[in-house]
């Protein structure tokens, strides 16, 4: 899932970013409302997490403008403002969920999962391509009786491949989908990540499923049974 995280306090932004990434999400983390607004126009996100008080443009106004533009993407407001009036105002501005800081990380991740289930694009808790099953909540990949827990990075790649089975995905497409805003992947970064994933999938005998299409990119190609 691609998430936009807007939080002005770097001390809070960094651990949130780390936790969400570990849960297999691609997270664009920014510190002000102006950048957030620009990114919203540039990219499609599956979830938005806004702090309320932000320099440039506050989270509430970002929330309202998203809804005005008719975007149905789930929005979670994460703020220190804790009065009932504030919560009502936040939810009325179009937020789907409202969390008061300091927030328990487990709860935040659970709420992110819950919001994903409520998304209009939700297709279930798991992805299945042939006999390969990817559990989205637990980041486990299963093939028959064998199963394997993936790291956040590996999970991101496999999820992307499994959402587009049989398609040739170019380096560019993979970079666009999996690299966070503001980070430049090194020239062989995609190759390295594919190599890592293949290594992990070897444990369940699925390493050959990812096919390299020379000169073009990669393709998830389940062997004919």
């Amino acid at each position, binding site marked *: 899932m691609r998430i936009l995280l807007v939080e002005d306090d770097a001390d809070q932004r960094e651990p949130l970013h780390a936790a969400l990434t570990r849960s297999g999400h691609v997270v664009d983390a920014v510190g002000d409302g102006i950048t957030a607004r620009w990114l919203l126009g540039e990219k499609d996100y599956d979830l938005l997490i806004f702090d309320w008080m932000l*320099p440039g443009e506050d989270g509430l106004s970002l929330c309202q403008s998203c809804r005005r533009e008719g975007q149905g993407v789930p929005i979670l407001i994460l703020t220190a403002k804790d009065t009932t009036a504030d919560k009502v105002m936040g939810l009325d501005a179009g937020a789907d969920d409202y969390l008061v800081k300091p927030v328990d990380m487990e709860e935040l991740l659970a709420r992110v999962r819950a919001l994903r289930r409520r998304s209009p694009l939700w297709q279930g808790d798991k992805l299945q391509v042939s006999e390969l099953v990817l559990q989205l909540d637990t980041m486990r990949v299963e093939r028959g009786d064998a199963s394997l827990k993936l790291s956040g990075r590996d999970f991101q790649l496999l999820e992307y491949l499994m959402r587009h089975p049989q398609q040739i995905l170019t380096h560019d497409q993979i970079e666009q989908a999996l690299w966070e805003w503001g980070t430049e992947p090194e020239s062989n970064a995609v190759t390295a990540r594919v190599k890592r994933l293949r290594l992990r999938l070897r444990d369940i005998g699925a390493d050959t499923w990812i096919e390299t299409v020379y000169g073009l990119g990669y393709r998830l190609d389940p062997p004919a049974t």
Partner: protein
Amino acid sequence: MANLAHRIYEHWHSLPIRVRGAVIIAIPVTCLFTALGAFAWLKSSLAEDEAWVQHTQTVRLETKQLLNALIDAETGVRGYGLTRQNEFLAPYHQAQAVIPESLTRLRRLVSDNPQQVAHLEDIQTLVNENLAILQQKITLQQELRLLQEPTNMPVPTASLYEWLEEGRELMDETREAIDRFAQIEEELLTQRQQHQHQYRQITWIVLCGSGVLGTAGALLAIHLFFQLEQELADRELALTATNHRLEVACDQLQRFTANASHELRAPVAAVMANAQVGLMELDDPDEGLRLLRQRLYKIVALSKQMSGLVGELLFLARYEGSLASDALQPVDLTDLLWQLYADWLPQANANALQLTAHLPDHKVTVSADAILLRQAIANLLSNACRYTPAQGMVELHLQQQNLQAVVKVSDSGIGIPPEALPHIFERFYRVDPQRSKASGGMGLGLAIVQHIIQVHGGQIKATSMVGQGTTFQIFLPLAGGSLG
């Protein structure tokens, strides 16, 4: 006199509006009722007078009638005596019927006046005597006639004259008595007419007087009403002003609560997030320990920041109110500022700033807690250094002005926007949230400075131009013998 008027005025203004409104309404109403009452009383008096005049006139008329009847009777009898014709006796018989009636009426009319009643008694006696004499005369004549009937000899002149003269004195006396009676009534009539006239005049004067009084009362009421209205308008104005002040205070409190909850929660949230993510990352076999170490460093830094914040809040709470007098010592500001200058020079140089001090060459003594005062000025210097870009200037001034010591800290820094200037001394207020955060400010520095200056009985003012710099001026009362 003026004092009394002033006291009445004061008292009037201290009355509640309800009472004053009632008084204002009561003034013209009282005037109206007084006028009506006086008028009614005079009117009834006049009516009474009128009745009395009428009454007296009736008495006069009746008296005249009585007299006429008596004279008619006498004349009739006299005529009869001369002519012996019975028809001359008609007025006499008529008078015999009229006189007692007239007397009865008169008695009834003057029954309220004992003097006149006595007079009337006399008159009655005289009249009766007169009537008796007349009767006697007639009887005498008739007897005489019976005697002389055959001869038909005329009555001798001498005896006739005698007969005629008889009773004349009594008649005159009666007439006089009646005249006296009438005279008294006449006097009464004059008196009563005069009385009536007097009352008419009084009525007129009272009418004019109550008209004037009523007009004056109405004018006074209008004046008081306008005054009351003005006062109500003033009161409303004062209320609006109070309301505005309350709104400002309320806004400030709301800002403080919002900012404080943000500032207090932010480090806790960051510590918690780092600790929890650190625990998650511990599962990572290769990177776990390295990441955990980083997070622990972060947590230590955040805890220090929180501790600083708690310290500052406690400081503000501890020095609420004013300082105990034994905490105040004579402090030489010149010396204190030279020390601060020396302390901050290395820091300023490290930031590529030019720090200069313009201090007098004599002592400027204020009564203060030296440690607190030093902290206040150090906070200002710290702000100046923090918000002034490299190659900028920071200046420290001290001068004496009207029994006050004025410490001035000015910089050539980024300045404060005018809309933020009134709020900079509020706790947790931030001109630009991101910038101050990056600069390490907590939003309490200036609140602490102001607090310290206020507990010393001083004042602090800030002036600023965006892009040109900011000047803070501290005014402190001089201690006695400051030049010593």
